[in-house]
């Protein structure tokens, strides 16, 4: 057989090879040294400041203001990225960048305001003439559609198609993976089975939505929800035309009603959009639609992606999860003017499940918080710029109810407080410390670094923490399953969280409402179930005035933070690249600090 033959024949060269290897080891070292020094030259030589564009607009020029405002049309806006969308189907996509990008080809009744920073948290009318009429009992929303809404074949968009699109969310076996907020709010009992199992002739069997005519759509909520407009601003509320609905495959080529349409898409390779000439600019107060063409190229090499951005070959990293350390250092040194450093709205944290002793005791949880070194944790996340500010509570700056001065454990000073930690240990009945396990995703180097930082700091007060890195892709079934957490004895869970929409309901409720504890995919990691906190959420959600709701979320935040259920590491920030030719670039809180893609242009 060939394998045996080959094995026998290759055996002898190996022994000769090792002899030759010893003889020439010194020579090899020289060659390697020469190659490495060449690499250093290559790395340093390419510091050109983005070819093919104007001058960079300046460090943080896109934070809370518009960098390089312009209304000039034309050109190709070139995105690059390392991660494809989970789906480009409006009802299935859940990645933040997909929601941002989706505005190119799909529209919703309302949408985040196209304005920098915190202003984007408000929603404005998009397909609707206004942000809807709310009934006195706050349970009925009525919208009227604008004139001139069209699909890419020129046919008008009707309210029934919006209803049909929303109904697709209910078909969770086919249209899986997308956000389910509308389903939870409109039909909490799940009495509707989705349009594919709908016996009514026009497949519009969902009772909670009425379409009295083609221009009117009425939503009936079983109970008021102050964030309902935010939920309608998610692409999951976009229309789909039944005759163009290819079910599971819709995400491969969504039928456009926005300013651009799909020409091509290959999963994990890239996509191309061109202008949708049937789109009426007059009908759309939100989208600038400046480039003639929009492309996305997906790459496998994150370091090379940063290089390509710095070299000016691409304009924006569509994922915007922050540049890698090599690219970041180079960019901060030589091209600082192309960098923005936005808040992402994420909090990176450790959670303490109460089912794992001794974290059922508040004082043991507090001991961990006091003993940890918060400057070291910030450094582990990447430092003040690439990692973010030291977190002091469980509401991020982008959410109403956040109070910058609130810091009950004095974490901002950035030093461990060993005396207090020891006091808390005594109060917990563990004066000599205890043993526990930190669970951390094995594919997130920064999370592993934070776990190591905690391990070192906790040791000083006698807490012996083992680190257990687990398969990060399986987190829903590992740390998201309370049974498993208890069985494995995971006392400290390292994780991060960002809201689907910037409100206390979107951010804090899944983390801290006892009714959100689930068998799998659980996000309420401490398994916190406090009737007072649950009631605060109910009251806040029923409140349609965002400022009043913010006050209630602030109270809930205080209870969660002071109960020491979570220990925040950072209010996350990112370093993102803005090419020199980009115009109208500003970061948007509604899209986790990404640029508002619908506003970008490439011609000055």
């Amino acid at each position, binding site marked *: 057989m*060939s394998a045996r033959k080959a094995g026998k*024949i290759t055996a002898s060269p190996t022994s000769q090879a090792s002899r030759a290897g010893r003889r020439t080891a010194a020579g090899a070292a020289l*060659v390697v040294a020469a190659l490495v020094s060449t690499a250093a030259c*290559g790395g340093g*030589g390419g510091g050109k400041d983005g070819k093919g564009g104007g001058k960079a607009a300046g460090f943080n020029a896109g934070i809370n203001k518009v960098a390089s405002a312009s209304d000039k049309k034309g050109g190709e806006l070139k995105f690059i990225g390392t991660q494809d969308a989970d*789906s480009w189907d409006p009802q299935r996509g859940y990645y933040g960048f997909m929601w941002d990008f989706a505005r190119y080809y799909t529209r919703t009744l309302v949408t985040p305001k196209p304005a920098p920073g915190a202003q984007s948290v408000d929603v404005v009318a998009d397909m609707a003439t206004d942000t809807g009429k709310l009934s006195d009992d706050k349970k009925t929303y009525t919208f009227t559609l604008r004139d001139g809404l069209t699909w890419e074949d020129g046919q008008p968009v009707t309210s029934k198609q919006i209803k049909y699109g929303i109904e697709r969310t209910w078909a969770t*076996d086919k249209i899986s993976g*997308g956000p389910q907020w509308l389903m939870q709010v409109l039909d909490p009992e799940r009495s509707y089975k989705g349009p594919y199992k709908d016996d009514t002739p026009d497949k519009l069997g969902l009772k909670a939505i009425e379409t009295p005519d083609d221009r009117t759509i009425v939503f009936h909520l079983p109970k008021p929800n102050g964030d309902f407009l935010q939920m309608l601003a998610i692409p999951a509320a976009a229309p789909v035309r039944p005759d163009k609905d290819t079910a599971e495959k819709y995400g491969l080529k969504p039928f456009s009603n926005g300013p651009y349409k799909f020409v091509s898409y290959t999963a994990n390779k890239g996509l191309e959009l061109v202008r949708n000439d049937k789109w009426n600019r007059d009908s759309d107060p939100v989208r600038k639609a400046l480039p003639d063409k929009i492309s996305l190229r997906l790459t496998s090499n994150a370091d090379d992606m940063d290089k390509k951005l710095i070299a000016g070959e691409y304009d924006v990293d569509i994922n915007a999860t922050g540049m890698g350390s090599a690219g970041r250092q180079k960019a901060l040194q030589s091209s600082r003017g192309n960098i923005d450093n936005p808040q992402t709205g994420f909090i990176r944290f450790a959670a303490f499940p109460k089912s794992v002793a001794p974290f059922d005791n508040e004082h043991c949880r507090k001991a961990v918080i006091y003993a940890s070194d918060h400057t070291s944790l910030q450094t582990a996340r990447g430092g003040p710029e690439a990692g973010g500010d030291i977190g002091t509570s469980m509401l991020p700056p982008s959410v109403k109810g956040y109070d910058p001065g609130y810091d009950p454990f004095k974490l901002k000073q950035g030093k461990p407080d060993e005396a207090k930690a020891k006091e808390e240990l005594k109060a917990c009945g563990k004066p000599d410390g205890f043993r526990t396990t930190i669970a951390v995703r094995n594919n997130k180097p920064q999370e592993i670094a934070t776990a190591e930082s905690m391990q070192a700091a906790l040791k000083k007060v006698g807490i012996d923490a083992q680190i257990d890195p687990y398969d990060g892709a399986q987190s829903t079934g590992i740390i998201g399953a309370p049974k*498993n957490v208890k069985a494995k004895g995971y006392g400290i869970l390292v994780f991060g969280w960002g809201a689907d929409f910037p409100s206390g309901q979107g951010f804090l409720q899944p983390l801290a409402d006892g009714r959100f504890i689930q068998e799998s*995919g659980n996000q309420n990691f401490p398994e916190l179930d406090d009737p007072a906190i649950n009631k605060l959420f109910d009251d806040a959600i029923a409140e349609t005035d965002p400022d009043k709701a913010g006050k209630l979320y602030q109270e809930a935040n205080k209870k969660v933070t002071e109960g020491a259920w979570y220990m925040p590491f950072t209010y996350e920030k990112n370093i993102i690249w803005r090419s020199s030719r980009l115009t109208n670039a500003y970061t948007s809180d509604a899209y986790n600090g990404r640029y508002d893609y619908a506003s970008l242009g490439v011609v000055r």
Partner: protein
Amino acid sequence: MFAYLVRRLFAVIVMLGVVVLVTLSIFFAIPKLTGTDVATLFVGKQADPASIEGIRQKLELDDPILVQFWHFVSGLFAGRDYTGGGTTEHCPAPCFGYSFRNEQLIWPVLTDRLPVTLSLVSGAAVLWLLGGVATGVVSALKRGTLWDRSAMTVALAGVSLPIYFTGLLSLAVFHYWLGWVDGEYTDFAEDPGAWFSGLMMPWITLAFLYAAMYARLTRATMLEVLGEDYIRTARAKGLREPVVIGKHAMRSTMTPVLTILGMDLGALIGGAILTESTFNLQGLGRAAVVAIGERDLPMILGVTLFTSTAVIVANLVVDLLYAVIDPRVRLS
């Protein structure tokens, strides 16, 4: 010869069956052992039991492994239907499965990715065969000279340096610094010039690694062969040195080279993973890596089966070629 072929082909089929069965078993055993549910990977952030159950049904996760094995194998020859949630998707033969992650059939993805990998591997193979074998022969003939030592030093560097080092290095120098070559792959049909330019770096990088191994292998084998009796006889007969080396010694030297080449080509067709990742070539190896990252089980199964077939077929071809190259070998 005919009986030999039939026997080998039968072994190939059994082997591929085992590969499919083992791959399937791994997919279904691991979630059971680790206590995780494959269906939860597909439901997104808000996982409710009804959605998970729907996905379980669609992915046929409740069927026993042998039933799944039968569905897969019969699909390969007869095609199969995927039913779920009220609609049906037909997958014509050869049905390598359906990716629920990307909502597409596996076979068209494989055929879309194959040309990229073939472009990479064939170009690199030409380079490393020419470079590696020539260097090895010359080194063997000039054993102990400066040429031999420096060639073997470079070869040692080639074997030792990982692709992601030499790859990034060559990109840094030839693309970003000197600007001589494209940093991206273009389809041959789209622009042959750009195709060539984009593949230059991957070819050289991959060939550097393999040429080094082939040079060392060729040199060692050649030295061994030159010590054989029949070479001495050939020289004693008064044959000219080019004939001794080129005709008599080369034939024996090429046997192990060919063996390794067959296995390398087979393996690379499914797995030039590092090269494809470093240079962002969207080939089969890259498809496998992405599929593993996304836990796209049908895609992993498809690539695995495709790759195993390539390795096994390449080995079969090599065995047949032996008879051509080495007159001492008879297939029976």
